[in-house]
C-alpha cells in the first residue's frame, strides 16, 4: 500500500480513508488478517497510537473486526464493502462538483466535459495490448 498525507486534515482521518480504499480495491481483501498496528504504523510512517485510533474507528464502522488473540481482520460483508465504495466515490464527486462550482462551470458544460473524458477513456481501452 502506498500512503500519502496532506497537511490540512487530521492524520487519523486520512488513515481511515486510505485503509477504506485498500479494502474496497482489494489491497486488503475481505476476511484477510490485517498487519499488526505497529507494522501498519511503520509502513505508513505514522504514530502507532494514531493508527490504533483509525483502526478502532473502522471497527466501529463494521469494516474490520478483532479476534481476541488472532488480531484484526477485514470484514467479509460484501454489502458493507460495497456501501463503503459508494461513500468514497460520492466524496470524490462532491469534491469535483465543488471545484466545478468554484470555476462557475454550468451543469451542461460539466456533463459535456465528463462525456468527453469518458470518450477518451474508451479510446485508450480499445488498445489493451501493449
Amino acid at each position, binding site marked *: 500500500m502506498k500512503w500519502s498525507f496532506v497537511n*490540512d486534515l487530521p492524520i487519523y482521518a486520512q488513515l481511515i480513508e486510505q485503509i477504506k480504499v485498500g479494502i474496497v480495491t482489494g489491497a486488503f481483501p475481505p476476511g484477510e488478517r490485517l498487519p499488526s498496528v505497529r507494522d501498519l*504504523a511503520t509502513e505508513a510512517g505514522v504514530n502507532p497510537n494514531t493508527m490504533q485510533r483509525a483502526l478502532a474507528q473502522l471497527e466501529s464502522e463494521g469494516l474490520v473486526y478483532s479476534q481476541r488473540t488472532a488480531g484484526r481482520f477485514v470484514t467479509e460483508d460484501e454489502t458493507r464493502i460495497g456501501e463503503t465504495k459508494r461513500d468514497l466515490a460520492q466524496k470524490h464527486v462532491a469534491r469535483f462538483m465543488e471545484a466545478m462550482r468554484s470555476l462557475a462551470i454550468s451543469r451542461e458544460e460539466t456533463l459535456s466535459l465528463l462525456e468527453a473524458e469518458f470518450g477518451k477513456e474508451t479510446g485508450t481501452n480499445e488498445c489493451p495490448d501493449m
Partner: protein
Amino acid sequence: MNVLTCKELSKKYGRTPALSGVSLNVESGHIVGLLGPNGSGKTTLIKLANGLLTPDDGTITICGLLPGKGTHAQVSYLPERAVLPEWMSVMQILDYYADFYADFRRDAAQEMIHHLGIDMKQRIRQMSKGTREKVQLIMVMSRQAKLYLLDEPIGGVDPATRDYILNTIISNYNPEAAVVISTHLISDVEKILDDVIFLDRGCVVLESSVDEIRETRGVSVDALFREVFKC
C-alpha cells in the same frame, strides 16, 4: 502514568534565562515533539531531565524520581552531538552498551545493524555522518527504557536517513515508555508524534495533540509553528 514531569522549572546561564517556569507532563505511551526555534530551551530541558544540569528553581522528575543514579537506568538519551568513541568497532560498541546498561537489548541492536548492512568490524571513524547517526540511534532505541530523550535526532542527515530514523523510532514503540523528540524539522516528524510542546524563549506557549491542531485549526503543526514563530 506520567513519565516526565516539570513543575515551574527554571534555569539560567549566568544572567541569561534558558527556561522560565516550565510546567509540563509527558505520559507513558506517548511520542512527544519538543519544538521551538534555536535557543528556545529544548536542549536545556533535555539536559535537566538527564541530570547534566541542575535546575535553579522548580522540579523535574522522571517516574517520580529526581534525576540521578536511579533515573539514569530508566532514561535513554541521544545527545545533540555524536558521542560514540570513534576508535570503537560496532562490535565493541555493542559490548560497551551491554556493559553499561542492564536494559540493553543486544539482539534487537544486532538485528538492526545487520539490516543496515553494516559490518560488525567497521569502526565509527570509518563511517559517514549518516551511518554514525543511525548506529547511535540504534543503540539508544535498543534500550528498554522508560523515557527516550532524543535531541535533534534527524538534524543534518539526508531525507532517506531521516525516514530510517523515524521508522526505527516507530518500530521500537513501547506503550510503557515515552519518547521526547526535540527538533525544528517539524514537517518530517509530525506524523509520528502524539503531542507537541512549543517552547519559546524558555516558556511553554502551546501543548496540544497533533490531530487536535489539524482538526481545530485546519493546518499542519509545521504551518502553525511558522505562524507562531514568524520572525
